[in-house]
């Protein structure tokens, strides 16, 4: 998926299911061996949600977190607390499904090698909805019924992500 043309960047999102080695994966991720974000699918309603967060990470002149990949997790989160954001949206040792988000420049076309290390089954992204926990999402983004009765939930989520810097929540 293309991001803002100004960023010259493509976004790729892969869904892995039946993950067996989440613990090792997480450790390697923390050590910075994987150039990607790994996200809990339960908190993602639609790939567009990640696109908005990634796009924001690339457009911002300054990052709040260490890398563009942690920035995506931070942007996804409605809170400004960095470690809480990474904890909430990042993967857990016990997770059996995860989303892998990579960015590459328009000119490059490299297949990320490290994906092989994930002991799992890659599923089509359309299956994401099987893992989405809508009630948890509504809770985390503080979307009440008054709001969701008129505004599609995805719109509520992406708007919060895009305007996070301006909100004093």
């Amino acid at each position, binding site marked *: *998926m*293309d*991001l*803002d*043309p*100004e960023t010259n960047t493509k976004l790729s999102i892969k869904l892995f299911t039946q993950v067996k080695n989440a613990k090792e994966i997480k450790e390697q991720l923390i050590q910075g061996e994987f150039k990607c974000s790994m996200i809990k699918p339960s908190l993602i309603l639609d790939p*567009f949600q990640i*696109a*908005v967060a990634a*796009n*924001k990470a690339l*457009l911002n*002149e300054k990052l709040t977190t260490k890398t563009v990949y942690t920035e995506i997790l931070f942007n996804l989160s409605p809170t400004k607390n960095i470690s809480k954001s990474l904890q909430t949206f990042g993967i857990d040792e016990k997770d059996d499904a995860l989303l892998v988000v990579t960015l590459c420049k328009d000119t490059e076309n490299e297949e990320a090698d490290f994906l092989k290390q994930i002991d799992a089954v890659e599923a089509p992204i359309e299956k994401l909805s099987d893992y989405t926990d809508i009630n948890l999402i509504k809770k985390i983004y*503080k979307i*009440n019924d*008054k*709001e969701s*009765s*008129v*505004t*599609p939930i*995805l*719109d*509520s989520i*992406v*708007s*919060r992500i*895009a*305007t996070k*810097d*301006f*909100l*004093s929540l």
Partner: protein
Amino acid sequence: MKNFELIKQGAEAKLYQGTYLGKPAIAKQRFAKKYRHPSLDSSLTKERITAENRALIRCKIAGIRTPAVYAVNLAENTIYMEHVLHSKTAKDLIEDYSRSNDHSRLQEFFYHIGKTVGKLHENNIIHGDLTSSNILVVSKHNPQTLENCNPSDLIIVPIDFGLSRIQSSAEDKGVDLYVLERALISTHSLAEESFEHFLSGYQAQYTNGSKEVLHKYDEIKLRGRKRVLIGI
């Protein structure tokens, strides 16, 4: 801003239409006002982008439909937002009703606008620039068409929150109503007689507080009409 097409040059922003992250989008770019002192201009622009973003979200939380925000590019002073498809401005709809002499629908529409503004104020959102051009409507049931839509089947989508503030004072809410009333009357020939329907919608929605606001609003109206013109 590649592949975007200019659709409107407003007083302080240019609106472009295109596709952003795969969605039909509007890019609203605030441009520098060369007549304004540069430091005044840039602080106003930042202030208004912030105000707009805050109000858009606050409206959603309050159960008022507003365009979704996709990205904010501060270097370009641009907000990328949802292109509300199959919409019409309240201005055009009021003119449609007026042309066909449909007074009852016109009045009902005013009532619904009143309810939406009441909801804004109930949540302490002062729009700051309410006009019939700054309100969009879309159909509730059949998103494709607005033809022959009853006012009760419309969703009212306020836009253009650059001058908005979060403020609980009855004075500011009263000014908001006064600004809207005058904008409506100066734009639409039938607005004057229909404005009472707006006010009843406003009161019906904003049950605890509209009384005080309407009191202020009457006061503000008098200030305008009866101002002694030479101050000493």
